[in-house]
């Protein structure tokens, strides 16, 4: 079973010689959904946030390649990928909430995202790396670890709590229950603080 995987359309596309490269700065995770200079035809799901391009005078191919040659760390990052997130209970989360929700056991459990090993490789992350996870509701930074044999590709797991709540929509579809499992999210490696 493969989960849905689609990469957002990268910025620019064709027409390097037709003017400045579109300015696209990485949205601030703290401020949520801010983005600067987003083209009108770009949706939340296709918005590219991987390439942390500053204002670049890429008026032609030569300048574009020169820029990327000197900024290889930024431009070689894997693209964000779409996953299905399962928040759920764990033993550690259960014991942790009794010890105190401000303490390490609980906090660690609700801020650690389990990812299929192949997906981790695809994302370019290792155990302990920070990843950014977002959808149309919220945007969070969490650490990651291998889900080993538990998770099939395309599926993520996290102990339910504040981080997963930030990604939950208020709609309950007339049931009183907000959709709390199988949330569509994007994930990418977080670069920075």
């Amino acid at each position, binding site marked *: *079973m493969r*989960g849905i995987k689609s990469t957002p359309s990268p910025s620019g596309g064709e027409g390097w010689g037709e003017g400045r490269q579109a300015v696209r700065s990485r949205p601030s995770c703290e401020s949520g959904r801010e983005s600067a200079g987003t083209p009108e035809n770009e949706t939340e799901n296709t918005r590219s946030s991987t390439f942390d391009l500053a204002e670049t005078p890429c008026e032609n191919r030569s300048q574009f390649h020169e820029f990327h040659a000197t900024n290889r760390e930024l431009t070689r990052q894997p693209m964000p990928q779409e996953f*299905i997130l*399962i928040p*759920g*209970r*764990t*033993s550690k989360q*259960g*014991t*942790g909430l*009794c*010890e*105190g*929700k401000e303490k390490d056991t609980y906090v660690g459990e609700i801020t650690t995202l389990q990812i299929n090993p192949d997906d981790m490789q695809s994302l370019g992350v290792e155990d302990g790396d920070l990843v950014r996870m977002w959808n149309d*509701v*919220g945007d969070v930074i969490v650490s990651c670890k291998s*889900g080993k*044999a*538990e*998770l*099939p590709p395309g*599926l993520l*797991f996290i102990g*339910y*709590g*504040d981080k997963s*709540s*930030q*990604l*939950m*929509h*208020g*709609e*309950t*579809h*007339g*049931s*009183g*229950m*907000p*959709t*709390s*499992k*199988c949330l569509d999210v994007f994930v990418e490696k977080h670069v920075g603080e």
Partner: protein
Amino acid sequence: MDRLNSKHMSIAPQQTEADSNPLKIVKDATCTFCGCVCDDMELTVEGDRITKAKNACVLGKAWFFNHHIEERPEALIEGRPAKYEEAFDVAAEILLNATYPVTYGLSDTTSEAQRVAVAITDWIGGNVDTTTSVCHGPSGMAFQGVGEVTCSLGEIRHRADFLIFWGGNPAESHPRHFTRYSLMPKGEFVPRGRKDRTAVLIDVRKTKSAKAADIFLQIKPRSDFELAWALRGLAAGLDVDESVEAKTGISLDTLKDLMQQMKQARFGAILFGMGVTMTRGKHINSEAVLALARDMNRHTRWVAKPMRGHGNVTGADNVVSWSTGYPFGVNLGRGYPRFNPGEFTTSDLLARREADAALIVASDPMSNFSQPARDHFKTIKSVVLDPKLSDTAKVATVAFTTSTYGINTAGTVYRMDDIPIPLRPAFESPYKSDYDILKAIEKRIRDKQLAPATG
């Protein structure tokens, strides 16, 4: 209500000579961490701490060892330490002056306290809802739609030879369920215990519970309804299209084999969890699973039981049901109860910014609710009762520190199979119980409502 704090519960004190550190053993105490409500705990109490919890699982131990007395004020009023009496007055004013209040939580308190919470909500014409609405509320809706073929956990222990765990991970969420009620124990009609049972796990993840199962079916996300419906078709002897595999990830041959085994069981039980209720479909998924169990009774005996997460969430269902006629999500604003999930359920009342005040008892919505609901909760006046300074208590207008049910406070709780079980407290607390606090608030509300009109 002296019996709530009476000493006649089966406490076998073994007092040491030193009064400063009395040691006592509490036998047959009740753990209320999860819906298993194991009542065979043997607690060693030293002073105001439980130091040993024989028979408790890892979750139960954490529950007992971490609910000791903390040095905290009786109450906080907008963050300022306050005494109970002042806080009762402020709390009553908040609830009386609210236009559209909601009472929520109730899953980690006694049924005696739950009754008072419902009464308060009735007096003020508010909405009463419980953590059921974000747990097995969809199953509660499904009960009304298709019915529940049910039994006690004792019947499962003594009769069940085929178990399907669907959308849950009991190894981590209900650790003693396997050993005490379902998978392992020897029973009257399953004398060899595990050897007489077949266990199936249906889940999107291969969790720790999969290791305990004989058959693991890794279902695709968001396809629980289709899987249950396909099984219903097979149970009815209908032809099921092979496209079920593309949707569910489970081949038709596997489903046929499973159905064959299910029909041959003497007593089967489907035990389902949040994987069914929290995903696309919600109550429709629960209906499909419950209908499957019902259909299987044409062939042999089958039941379907929801796995409940909190110690007394089932009690909340019972109390709200017998008080109002409905289990959760009830509006009492017109002087009679109205039930409408999606309209009177707390997640919606908050996310749509409709509730203007809240009474939160023994739960922590600020930790677990959707972001829109949490954003609104921070803006309204709230009265919160919790033994700990939870995330919800931190933003409350009035936050009461309470004693902990089952550890400090006696009362009644309901196990996940609707069996009422008494609590046997281990040691006393200097803090008031939920029941006492709610009664005090209720009295102030009624005194104001019944006071002669002036002017």
